[in-house]
């Protein structure tokens, strides 16, 4: 019986040791992953905010007005329409 306990301890001790090491290393790996995903989440969030900003800028009246001005789409440059060819041909 005494021998059995002695062998049992010799078996259990290394198992516990390796289990402990495994948990320790796993903890470090998971800690790294948490850290990594924290950074990634923050980065994606920031990208989202930036894309939201860019989209709303492109959708804004302010941007439309600036584009219209840069294309000279003002009263001095009326649209040319097919119904009024005289206009198109500058007669």
């Amino acid at each position: 019986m005494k021998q059995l306990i002695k062998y049992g301890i010799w078996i259990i001790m290394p198992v516990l040791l390796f289990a402990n090491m495994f948990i320790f290393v796993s903890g470090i790996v998971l800690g790294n992953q948490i850290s990594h995903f924290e950074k990634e989440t923050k980065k994606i969030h920031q990208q989202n905010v930036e894309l939201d900003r860019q989209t709303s800028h492109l959708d804004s009246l302010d941007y439309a007005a600036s584009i219209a001005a840069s294309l000279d789409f003002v009263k001095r440059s009326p649209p040319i329409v097919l119904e009024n060819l005289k206009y198109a041909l500058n007669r």
Partner: protein
Amino acid sequence: MIRAKLLFLFFLAIFIAVIAKLFYLQLFRPSASLLDNYLKTNKIYPERGRIFDHNGQPLVLNQNSYLLYFEPKKISDPKGISEKLAGILQIPEASIESKIDSSKIWISFKSGVVEDQKKIIENLHLDGVGFQYEMKRYYPEASLSAHLAGFVGKNSSGEDIGYFGLEGYYDKDLKGLPGFLETERDIIGRPIFIGTQERVNSENGRDLQLSIDKTVQEIIKRKLKQGLESYKAKQGCVITANPYTMQILGLVCLPDYDNDQYYQFSEEYFKNPAISEVYEPGSIFKPLVMAAGIEEKKIKPDDFYNEDGPIQIGEYQIRTWNNKYEGKITMTRILEKSSNVGMVFVGSKLGNDSIYSYLQKYGFGEQTGIDLQGETSGYLKPKNNWYPIDFSTVTFGQGIAVTPIQMVRAFASLVNGGNIVRPTVVEKITASEEEKTIKPKIERKVISGRTTEIIKKMLVSTVENGEIHWAKPKGYTIGGKTGTAQVPIQGHYDPSKTIASFVGFAPAENPKFITLVTLREPQTSPWGSETAAPLFFDIAKELIVYYNITPDQ
């Protein structure tokens, strides 16, 4: 036995070594960073709520922003860094260089650095220059709604706080609740998986959806800007609302300011004149008194008044604006020609008590309760301080101080069935899991539906048969009234300085909008009929097209 003792001594030595190391770390080298790193509590800042217009188009959003900081100990060439940053940040080199104090470890330099600037600076790979993430407001439509939106500044503790307009009024809703993250971390800052991990998430600010329509806002701002230039006025306001719900569709006052660069403007620009400044309304007040007279059955639209000359009240003489008198005229004609003496007659029929009572019912002297920060209540003198002349002049809008928003609310009651409705700018507040709709609130009923039908017809007739024929949108019936109020300066009226105004609604039968235009001290003409009224019709034409209103004539 000896082996067991050796094993015991081996473990004891390791144990003592660990304790010695901990003793050394905690007592001889208690580095703040190490202690902070062990149990780290980070405040999680909530994202400020966004503001959208009626159609869900963004008016105020958040954008990434960074605090640029220096670590002078790592900077070897302050001059070189200053030269490189000066062009990107638009800050003089000398100012940057003077900030880099080599005796300090960390210096906060510039807040509000945007993404593009950050990328350029990062590509320069400058030692000792870093960024800390923060957020700031972004206005896709620039200052289209400056007075409405307000801005976000800092309080004395350096925290974000909303000032003026919606940012000020809804600050608690917009800013949200901060959370925190408490984690045990190892020496290089990684979370210890089996250690404490406590997280209380922040609650982001609530989003606001406004009754403001971006397109309406753009129309009235553009037209008001043109109007100020054409009539050389000092200041102007346009308020457009739904007369039944008093939901504000557009509100613009010029000059305004740039929300993004608010710190470059003086404080006087931040006040929204539409709610924070009082003025004497002048003749646009007349329909309110006329409606009160009709409601009390003291007068009828077809009753006659003999306009035969000025009226003497004590030592004061009241005349018409052009000192011309038409003899027998109807009540409708009194409004059409904006007769001051005619209104004094209406006031005398109504009686002083009734006049005062109606001023209170229309809501003058009290805040309208609009959901914008900075509203003033105007001024209505206590009744026992009124002189007889005051009861006469108030019938044509002199001797009373009102805000433009009070005026719109009171005038809306003439066309919406007689209700005084609380004006609102926000129609919906949205949080992550809940949505609150702000419903129109009728404060009280001032006049009956019958009276509003009569006064609407009189106001349509005022536009049709007024002293001046404006370029009205063809095929539409529009009601309204002009006003020209002199500006009181040191107890006297200065005839050269006026506030010209026009309040109108369209289409008359079932109004889609009510619009008030006020212009302060127009130089081309002092009269509302020659300045504010044409501007109103210009705006009305575009609104009719935008709302796709069918002609009713």
